[in-house]
């Protein structure tokens, strides 16, 4: 199947700001109809990207949250053997109709949807090493066979597949080759200013500037074990706003630091470096 040029181009949404690199990656994925693999620091909006794509293209979003126990098969369909065994023993329902015991997973749902959908496979690295390999064929051909019934599920419209990874595990090469890759950079101060403005419209300008300054000072503080990220900044500003704080600077009185730093050691080392040893109010 030759890729059909898609006239739709992704440009971000009102609440999701992008840059050229991300737009190019999304548009490549849309045009070539390949899965889009998004990596990046936690809190840079990998998951939100799928929502933004769905929103801007006007498609429905299906999500598949991958866990450490998730198997590739679960995404296609689940054959509820135990229910069938139970029914056969205790006589409820029509046991002979095997289709009654086959439930579609997120991937199966996306394939059989009557319209094009956006499928988010979230945190693909959480699952077993073999997980991505097991999905290769299905994502490539966008079809699979239900072995129990012999039915073939073929995608009517190839879904837009967005895969996020936190890089906890290496992904297999064969899998990577089939994906369009994008690494979400940490936003620079300029983009961050726009992101903050989108999430907190009407925020006092000086507070925003001060908060950003503190935020980047903390990020550049190399002794932190976990550096704060975008989502933490947004949360922190929300707390500052709701508590009516009007100015912040990086010293011992920095309010609500707990919203930015999530590790005990980090709070301690910040206190040592900036607060003359006194713990800030968390």
């Amino acid at each position: 199947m030759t890729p059909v040029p898609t006239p739709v181009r992704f440009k971000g949404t009102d609440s999701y700001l992008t840059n050229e690199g991300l737009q190019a990656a999304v548009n490549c994925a849309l045009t070539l109809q390949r899965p889009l693999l998004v990596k990046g620091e936690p809190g840079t909006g990998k998951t939100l990207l799928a929502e933004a794509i769905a929103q801007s293209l006007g498609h429905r979003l299906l999500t598949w949250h991958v866990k450490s126990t998730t198997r590739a098969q679960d995404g296609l369909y689940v054959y509820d053997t135990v229910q069938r065994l139970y029914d056969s023993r205790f006589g409820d329902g029509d046991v002979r109709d095997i289709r009654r015991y086959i439930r579609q997973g997120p991937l199966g749902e996306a394939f059989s949807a009557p319209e094009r959908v956006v499928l988010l496979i979230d945190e693909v690295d959480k699952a077993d090493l073999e997980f991505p390999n097991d999905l290769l064929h299905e994502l490539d051909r966008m079809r699979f066979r239900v072995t129990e019934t012999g039915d073939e599920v073929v995608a009517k419209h190839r879904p837009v597949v967005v895969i996020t990874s936190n890089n906890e595990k290496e992904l297999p090469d064969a899998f990577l080759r089939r994906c369009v890759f994008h690494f979400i950079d940490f936003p620079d101060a300029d983009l961050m200013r726009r992101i903050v403005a989108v999430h907190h419209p009407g925020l006092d300008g000086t507070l925003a500037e001060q908060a950003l300054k503190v935020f980047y000072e903390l990020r550049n503080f190399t002794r932190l074990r976990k550096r704060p990220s975008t989502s933490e900044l947004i949360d922190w500003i929300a707390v500052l706003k709701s508590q009516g704080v009007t100015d912040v600077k990086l010293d011992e009185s920095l309010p609500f630091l707990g919203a930015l730093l999530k590790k005990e050691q980090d709070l301690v080392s910040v206190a040592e470096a900036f607060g003359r040893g006194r713990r800030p109010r968390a």
Partner: protein
Amino acid sequence: MFLPFFYELRRRGVKVGAQEALALAGALRAGLHDSGLDGFYHVARALLVHSETQLDTFDQAFLAHFKGVETAGLELTQELLSWLEEARERRDLSPEELALLEQLDPEEIRRMLEERLREQKERHDGGNRWVGTGGTSPFGNGGFAREGIRVGGKGGRQGMALMQAGARRYAGYRDDLVLDTRQMAVALRKLRAFARDGSPDELDVDESIAATARNAGELEVVTRPPRRPNTRVVLAMDVGGSMDPYAAVMSRLFSAASHATHFKELRIFYFHNCVYGKLYATPQLTGGMTVPELTAQVGRHHKLVMVGDASMAPYELSIRTDAEGHYKADGLEGLTWLMQLAQHFERNVWLNPEPMGTWRTGTISVIARVFPMFPLTVEGLGEAVTHLTRGRTVKGVAARR
């Protein structure tokens, strides 16, 4: 046209293949690059690079390969010319425009394009010039002119591709750099292995079906123990003295290892320079147990990870001590203690923070004959873990000789 760029990437270790080439060709045909070097940079990066560790290499390759294009503009001109021809076929032109086109021979076009490319700093937004911007020209899709503007005029946006590539913002993600905690945790995670162990409290569906069938349809439930992590690790770290410069990276390794929840058992020991009969429980070299005690307590299947610079005065390898670490003329040499450890544990590695270039000489080369030695970088740790799990050494890096 872009094939040399592919080989440039391969030469630098970004393994691009035919699949990537086809994907890129498809994307370019669909016009995703907006006919500009800038767009091409983003499209190529999305399709050719599969890991953030390769982004920096890609940027460098891009810079090296297209730098000439930026200044001389020759190769790009070639492509622009072909685009111009395409445009002529596609667009509906008025007879006047066509007549205008016919007047100019390809040589003239090429000359003017080259001129423009050289004058990149200059804005030329007069929309009616025939290779200019602004869409009224039949060559509007050429994109070359838009490129020219982006180079000279609009700073402060994303910057131009070559400028971006030149900024080398992904240098921090290279995989041959020394690790941070998270990367270490990722590498260590590969060490995990599972085994079914403990009380059977998980439903074994397949067995249940088989048992039920054998039972003529009477439901028979079979359970099995759940999968649990089954990796046991002994980690021994060199502290003090020559290791001081590496204190930060060692503390990260320690925190990554001690936070790893996927080991069934993790024992951490310390030593100074070389093991003299005893491994200590604290960095202050107190507590701990002797090597004979350790080898008696833990099995051969524990994985032994030694971390140290392996650099010391040569005589320190041959100091004779007893198992308590006291000097004794009839004790065992430091090197012998190391060999005892290496012999007991079937899978062992030595991670060395020193750059690999220094490994050929001194005590490092001696110890590298006892333990397979890997550099303490993302790449090295990954290979060490591969060696620990499979007992197979990735060619080229291990210093086992």
